[in-house]
């Protein structure tokens, strides 16, 4: 089988970003780090949206991933970026595999609200944990990559490279999954669950799997952000954070794994620009952006890309 063009494009984009790393200014490095860190979480939102689900509580796994990374580094003596990312993924995997058994039975607003409830429980727990810094959280400092110590400029470049490579890997794997027979069931479930069962597949098992995949992506994103920011706190599982993931998910569209990553770049750019130009009304700028997207580009920003290339959107929005 030939290599899919999305895979080629992903590898090329990651290569270009890595090459640019040493020469671009600090603000650009920071923009890429944040956009891709959050973008990985939004990849997770995309899996859910393809399945017809929206979670208002994905901050749960974002925060879990970040705390797992922080604990790996500060408590378990593994201040290595790769160990931290693995820790974030593992924590999200374990928790979502259990919660998913319940959540995979719910749909629509019930699924959304139940997700929110779980994320707020974690918030409550963290705020009460003096040991974990309560509302202040704690600082995290990654010291090495795969055993190689990094400091100063090497650290800056190291964080950037780890984020770029991890995001590209996540997107590659997710793309392969979504194109597989199993992955394509997501949209079938969104359209007609009855028929999926009548074609011999388990809707529950597929929803559960997709939920776990989306949680792991959120956990990885959380770990990446912990590494980038160097600090974690319970706000990461507070509802506005979860809402932001939904926001970027809808802004981006679900047509391609590129959509969440690019959508996240657009979001971060608009936000920092709006924040700089009008610190008091930047939310309004984001609100208007969203309004325009929903009215004029219901398939998200990605549908604009497909339209420009003169192709119909290959996969529809979460709808």
């Amino acid at each position, binding site marked *: 089988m030939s290599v899919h063009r999305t895979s080629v494009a992903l590898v090329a984009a990651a290569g270009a970003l890595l090459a640019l790393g040493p020469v671009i200014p600090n603000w650009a490095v920071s923009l890429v780090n944040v956009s891709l860190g959050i973008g990985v979480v939004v990849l997770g939102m995309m899996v859910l949206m393809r399945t017809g689900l929206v979670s208002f509580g994905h901050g749960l796994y974002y925060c879990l991933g970040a705390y797992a990374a922080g604990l790996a580094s500060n408590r378990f003596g593994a201040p290595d970026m790769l160990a931290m990312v693995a820790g974030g993924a593992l924590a999200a995997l374990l928790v979502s595999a259990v919660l998913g058994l319940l959540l995979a039975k719910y749909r629509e607003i019930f699924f959304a609200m139940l997700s929110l409830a779980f994320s707020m429980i974690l918030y409550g727990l963290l705020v009460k944990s003096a040991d974990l810094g309560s509302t202040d959280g704690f600082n995290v400092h990654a010291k090495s990559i795969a055993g190689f110590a990094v400091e100063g400029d090497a650290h800056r470049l190291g964080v950037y490279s780890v984020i770029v490579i991890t995001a590209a890997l996540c997107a590659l794997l997710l793309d392969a999954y979504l194109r597989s027979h199993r992955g394509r069931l997501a949209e*079938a479930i969104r*359209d*007609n669950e009855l028929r999926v069962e*009548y*074609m*011999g*597949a388990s809707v529950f098992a597929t929803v559960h799997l997709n939920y776990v995949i989306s949680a792991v992506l959120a956990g990885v994103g959380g770990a990446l952000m912990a590494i980038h920011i160097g600090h974690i706190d319970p706000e990461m599982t507070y509802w506005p954070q979860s809402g932001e993931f939904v926001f970027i998910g809808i802004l981006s569209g679900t047509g391609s794994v590129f959509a969440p990553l690019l959508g996240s770049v657009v979001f971060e750019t608009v936000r920092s620009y709006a924040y700089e130009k009008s610190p008091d009304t930047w939310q309004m700028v984001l609100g208007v952006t969203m309004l325009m997207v929903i009215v004029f580009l219901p398939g998200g920003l990605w549908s604009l890309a497909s339209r420009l290339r003169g192709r119909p959107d290959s996969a529809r929005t979460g709808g």
Partner: protein
Amino acid sequence: MAVILDARGLEKRFGAVTAASNINVSVEQGAIVGLIGSNGAGKTTFLNMVTGYLRPDAGSILFDGRDITGQKPRRITQQGICRSFQIPQLYNSMSVAENLMVGVGIVASGGRGWAASNALDGTPEQAVSRMLEQFGLAGLRHRQAGLLPEGTRKLLDIAMAMVVRPRVLLLDEPTSGVSADEKFALMDMVMAAVRAMQVTVLFVEHDMEVVERYVQRILAFYEGRIIADGPPAEVLRDVEVRRFVIGEQDPPAGDRHA
């Protein structure tokens, strides 16, 4: 010929309504059976019980000698009983080919539960293309299912049941919503595919001309019971059938519910 489907003493009540009462049906492999009956007679309920959507209150269903009573639709499909729906159940946002690919993909990737007889003939893409050709849908393969006219939706719904090569095919009113002049063309295509696959078929139909033309045996339902069972010539002459199913002395059946 060997019996492939054997329903014994099926009962189903919905509150005060008896939807199935002592239903006994034994179908031989390769048979083409028509299910007739007025609205609410219990035809769909029978299909729903066979495919596991409804659990009978009493009785048992054997498929190829194995008891499948009360199993989930998923399990029953995997064993080789597939169905179409009175109201087409499609993946509306997907293309025609993608609708078929879902089923084929499930077989191709989830071999575990599937009976060996469901094994695909060729690659998934070939299986889909062959089905599209057989049903004259090849030209529409990239068309979005949600935008198709009703007749084509019916055809696609049936194709989705057939593309995984079932051993028993249950069709719920394949020609309802299809215009009079298209009915026979649709059924000719379906039956040609049925013969090529040597699949056993039970189909619900209100149009007696259609029934007579394609089946060797008719089951006539009335108020949850089977009031006649035999070759078309015999069943269609039956006094009860003429009165309660065909509706002599009564105005013809009007709009049907879902």
